[in-house]
């Protein structure tokens, strides 16, 4: 039945593309999570009246985040071509999409981390300081656990955005479902291929959202 509804779909190619999309999304989400968390915590701790209050660090980090967050993703990919080429020796393939995906998403996530951390009750941080906690203890045992639900719902939103970014990256040759929809579907005028690619992207997004929501609810003991 699937063959009659989607006569032009090459299933093997479709699965390969799905795998590539999942690969790009997973790797970039993991690295974005780590990088965004580090930048977000730096932004938080360097802001006024915080543990590392430092105007210069805060201004520089904040500016970098804002600049990269403001560049449209499709432009960012093009701007990063020389960098990617230097880093990986090629600008084609799933790996080549990763630098752009991460640099595009990490500042976005860093902002979400900052918002999550600002929601933490100041009194709890003060209590930890009054017990003689080091800053590293405060980061690992207070800041991260106390903002975990917000950090997870933030990375869920970011991961969904990254699925969209991988599709855009696909258009300039990174592979994945976006690439397939554009080359095999749009350019060869095979609407069924585009439709199938879209359905698969939607399924990926729904699964990410479902898992994210589940973990958010599970970690929230408030």
């Amino acid at each position: 039945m699937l063959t009659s509804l989607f006569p032009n779909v090459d299933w093997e190619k479709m699965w390969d593309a799905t795998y590539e999309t999942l690969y790009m999304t997973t790797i970039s989400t993991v690295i974005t999570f780590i990088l965004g968390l580090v930048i977000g915590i730096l932004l938080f701790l360097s802001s006024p009246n915080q543990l590392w209050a430092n105007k210069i660090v805060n201004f520089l980090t904040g500016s970098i985040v804002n600049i990269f967050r403001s560049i449209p993703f499709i432009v960012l990919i093009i701007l990063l071509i020389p960098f990617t080429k230097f880093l990986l020796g090629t600008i084609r393939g799933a790996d080549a999409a990763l630098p752009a995906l991460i640099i595009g998403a990490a500042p976005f996530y860093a902002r979400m981390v900052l918002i999550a951390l600002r929601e933490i009750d100041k009194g709890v941080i003060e209590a930890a300081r009054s017990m003689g906690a080091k800053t590293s203890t405060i980061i690992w045992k207070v800041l991260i656990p106390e903002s975990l639900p917000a950090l997870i719902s933030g990375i869920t939103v970011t991961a969904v955005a990254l699925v969209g970014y991988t599709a855009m990256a696909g258009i300039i040759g990174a592979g994945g479902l976006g690439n397939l929809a554009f080359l095999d579907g749009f350019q060869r005028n095979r609407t069924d291929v585009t439709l199938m690619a879209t359905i698969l992207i939607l399924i990926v997004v729904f699964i990410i959202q479902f898992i994210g929501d589940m973990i958010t609810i599970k970690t929230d003991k408030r």
Partner: protein
Amino acid sequence: MINIQNITKKYKTASGELTAVKEVNLSINKGEIFGIIGYSGAGKSTMIRLLNGLEKPTSGTVTVNNQEFSSIKGQKLRDARQKVSMIFQHFNLLWSRTVAENIAFPLEIAGVPKVKREARVKELITLVGLEGREKAYPSQLSGGQKQRVGIARALANNPEVLLCDEATSALDPETTDAILDLLVDINERLGLTIVLITHEMHVIRKICHRVAVMEAGEIVERGEVLQVFQAPQAAITKKFVSQITDTKETQETVAQIKANYPNGQLVKLIFVGEKTEQPVISHFVKQFDVEVSIVHGNISQTKNGAYGTLIVQIDGLEANVAAALSYLNTVEVQTEVIANAN
């Protein structure tokens, strides 16, 4: 145990410099429960945070438990803080941790191994009366229970000093009393020095040995609680004392009496300590030919004895009334004529 010398703390704000604490000197003895009372903005919050180095003074020195908190830094300050713990108005528990895990937190900070940690947490849970709630999250506890967790957490590393930052202000009167009883119990059993800040005279009366009254960054009055109750000097202290003695109903009753019985004199008698147990009134009625009607009476227990007030109306011949009043002064009952109805 605690020595504060010539402390001043200034903050820079958008509208200029603000002096939160102004040239304060204070010394608190080991094992004492010391209260600092003041309205919000009086500088008491800053004061208590100077005692564990959460705030650094602009000038002066703060020594607590032989550590100069005004100057130590880094690991030395963090180690010193483990012996000067703090509880808070809004409890400040980690919502992501259970009761047992919250109490274990300061032990983790101090690097206590897991097995010892668990044993200590168990002890503390029993000490504050939270058996059976170990696995509950703070969101499942009442305010009083949350403060018990706060107290257990503060006691985890066997501190020498406990700082209480408006620890009962968010609790209802009954829970407040239960928590205050717990603090007294801890003070007596562990010999812990307790410093508390509050805006409620009730708290001072119930558990403090000595009190300091703060206004606009300065200590305007200090002394034994009973003595301050008996003879408040500063206007603000009188206001705080009247929180306990002159309730609004009392004032209304007095006004009513004045209107209904224009004869005689309304007198407020103040009894302190053992005087509260003597039959002063019956002596005085027998000895002098006067009529006495009781308008209002009140006895408050403080840590160093009872403090009672009695408002009576004394009627009779003018000479007899005067003689009666001077008799009261000879038995060391303080008198205060409220209104001369004639």
